[in-house]
């Protein structure tokens, strides 16, 4: 799942659960996840 599609799904779920205040927190988490996924220690199955 890409970060963008995860974020859209998470925000939609939070709104469905009447937690719209979660949106900025989820956006912050998405930025942290992007950093984590870019880290040079991640595995690459093609390598």
């Amino acid at each position: 799942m890409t970060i963008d599609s995860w974020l859209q799904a998470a925000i939609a779920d939070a709104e469905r659960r009447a937690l719209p205040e979660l949106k900025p927190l989820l956006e912050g988490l998405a930025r942290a996840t992007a950093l984590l996924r870019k880290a040079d220690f991640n595995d690459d199955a093609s390598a």
Partner: protein
Amino acid sequence: MTTQALDLDTLTIEEFGRRLRARDLTAEHVTDACLRRIEEDNPKLNAFILVMADAARQQAREADRELAAGRDRGPLHGVPISIKDLIDVAGTPTTAASRVREGHVAVHDAPVVGALRDAGAIIIGKTNLHEFAFGTTNEDSAFGPARNPHDLSRSPGGSSGGSAASVAAGMALATLGTDTGGSIRIPAAACGLVGLKPRHGELSTDGIVPLSHRLDHVGPLARTVTDAVLVYRALRDRAQNPAKAGSHGRGSPLPGSQAPHAWDAALAGPRLPAPVPVSGLRLAVPRGYFFELLDEDVRARFEEALDRLRAAGARTIDVNIRHASLTAAIYLHLVLADAAAYHAATLERMPERYTPSVRLRLEMGRYVLAEDYTRALEGQEILRREVDSALAGHSALALPALPIPAPLIGSASVQVGSVTEPVRNLMLRETQLFNLTGHPAIALPAGATSAGLPCSVQLVGADTEDLLPVALACEAQITGVLRPRSGGLGG
């Protein structure tokens, strides 16, 4: 009985112990003085959730009777100690500063509390904290925020904020806190105290409400390194994590010894580390990430501390921790998911009982994907190896414990230089790496800002027992006693 004035603002466990055995003080006298201080100042500080006055007085009288009868339990005999209200004390609620815990009463003491009782400590009360230890300012608490004794408009740090305030304000001689991202070292730094996070897994965390089992630690806050060592040693001797027993076997359990009646005898056995000469210290300073966002006064006090250590003969060497800038991202994925797993059932059943901010951050954890959690675990292991490498050949790492002075209560962000950052990100920035790696770390007072707010130096070691003599040597060069009653509480 008392031949010298009793100054609760500066009284250490060490001084109390000497005067107790010289019959210059009694446990009852000091416990009463602490309880009077609580009565006087707790309405302003909100440090305590529960004051155990009757039980504390009874324990103090018993401690005095035991000593008179020739039973000396060691350095903590008769010492009033407060306990973060995340830790079970039999017969009292463990509120975790949350309405979610309404109706809870602990059946047993947590092993760390039992250890303190066995060592003769007086349990004086349960202290305020950030709800479920999930925050760094102590603002989100079902009991309202605790306040900093140095400036009542400011946070005492968190999550063990009430614990730190209780010692800084002379309501107890030491306290037990917990530390998942810095919650012992951050409030110690904000309140001008020593805060020790031992190596991960060294002390039992049974009977303590978890935030993240893989990151949670328990340890002491006190006025001096010696006092922190005395509390730590009592815990290590009696509440060692069973899985780790034997791996840190220096020192042995000391049952009540017979009639030493002298402080030196009470310290018999390996109670205090042998001092090391400052001239032999090699301190590694992890420049880069940890020094990018520092308040100017905090930076100045840290560099002055290094100057003093170098003047005394210590060597300082700049080192690099390559993936340090990923610390927050790695930490976030682990702590959020672990906390969300623990709280999932109550988030469904009684969400309204959480403070709004803590509830939202717990809910955020429910969206962490398994693949990202796995990446964070891999990052944690890489950071552990990098900190091991940075420590190789050095006595300790040295860096600030808190990049800013204690923040104003209610402030969501703080400006550092030209950058405005969320308070939470800043508060965790210097400490959370060592929760990820599990290395022991200690915060030491290191002067004050121009506004009189405490600053702090953090030392990180490979092994708790090896770190303590380094901390003792550094303390002698860099610390100064700050007296809250001439600041926030005296105003």
